[in-house]
């Protein structure tokens, strides 16, 4: 039993500029979660609340890169994870957050914090603890090497399960037609 536990695949997950929808889709594999925890243990993840990523076999990244902290976390994941996966439209294309790429950053901030509807005594937040925003939102493959891509907004629970099951059993990763969609 102890030996079997030692062989568990260590999985780290995080959401960068994402909405946690992809994590919800992971939870949406329902009772297969019980099968999954037989095979894996979690490192840094919203599921464990571990704050720093440690050496892991598999890293699942949700969301694109929109600020300096995203870059730091993503690079730490790349350093620590043997296999890194871009999960969902935002990690793959920047997604909805990248819609701000069409506007200068100061216009976005002004719109939200200065000129926005109902804003009183507005001002752009400048607490030193706040990570600095990048000029544009980027997909994660523009910052680090990515080993696998799981498209979808979010990828269906079935798609995530198929991926994990095939990857963990060492099979080539293949999907049925309806498991891959970009929306």
């Amino acid at each position, binding site marked *: 039993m102890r030996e079997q536990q030692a062989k568990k695949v260590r999985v780290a997950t995080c959401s960068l500029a994402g909405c946690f929808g992809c994590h919800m889709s992971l939870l949406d594999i329902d009772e297969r979660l019980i099968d999954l925890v037989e095979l894996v243990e979690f490192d840094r993840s919203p599921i464990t609340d571990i704050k720093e990523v440690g050496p892991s076999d598999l890293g699942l990244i949700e969301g694109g890169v929109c600020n300096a902290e995203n870059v730091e976390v993503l690079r730490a994941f790349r350093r620590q994870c043997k296999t890194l996966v871009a999960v969902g439209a935002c990690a793959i294309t920047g997604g909805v957050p990248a819609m701000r790429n069409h506007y200068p950053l100061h216009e976005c901030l002004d719109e939200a914090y200065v000129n926005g509807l109902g804003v009183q005594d507005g001002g752009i937040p400048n607490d030193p603890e706040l990570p600095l925003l990048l000029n544009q939102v980027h*997909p994660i493959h523009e910052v680090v090497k990515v080993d696998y891509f799981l498209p979808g907004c979010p990828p269906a629970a079935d798609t995530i399960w198929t991926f994990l099951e095939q990857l963990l059993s060492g099979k080539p990763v293949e999907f049925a037609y309806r498991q891959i969609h970009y*929306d």
Partner: protein
Amino acid sequence: MIEHFSLDGKRIPFQPGQTIMDAAMQAGEYIPHLCHNPEFRPRGSCRLCVVRANGRSVAACTSPAREGLEVESDTPDIQADRRSLLQMLFVEGNHLCPACEKSGNCQLQAVAYYCGMLAPDFTHLYPVRELDGSHPDFVLDFNRCILCELCVRASRDADAKGVFGISGRGIGAHLIVNAPSGKLGDTDFDPHDRAAQVCPVGAILPKHKGYDVPIGRRIYDRKPVSLVGDVADHQEDMS
């Protein structure tokens, strides 16, 4: 006289004068394409239908079929080239599938699914492009235009209106509207025009019915483009 060529080892009949694409479509064999529609003169611009004919790479939609030609289309290397072309099409525009009304009825998506593209993992250009909502029934979203010129050909050849054109060259090429203002609302573009029904992507979109058919129940949500064909043939499913 019926002649034949081979497509991935299958014997395909053709009439003299037909292209490789014409004959393949007639025989029910699918060769990926975006800028081709048999109603209009072939353009050969999207390059997705490039096949290897007797060892030479040619666009199937513009190359005449010839007796005894050996055509390869569905091979790992040709499909890999197609994926690269598709990835370039995705990153050159702003193709935000989760926020696009055309998603699921989009032939760019469908061909990318067919060719096995998981992600457009090139550097995204995020070009800044306009949106034209001036027409009462249609919106033009230039973010999604892939320059297939189907609307240009349909408006010119089928509708005899010439509403659309392509201006500029190379990466500067872009769709324009034939009006002094450049606005669709200032043309005689009409919802019944053929040009209103041929866009393979979400660049020319009807207003007021974006989600009448929910995501998940659309043309390419269930079946691949190789089985259900072009989106231009499915107008009844989208309205």
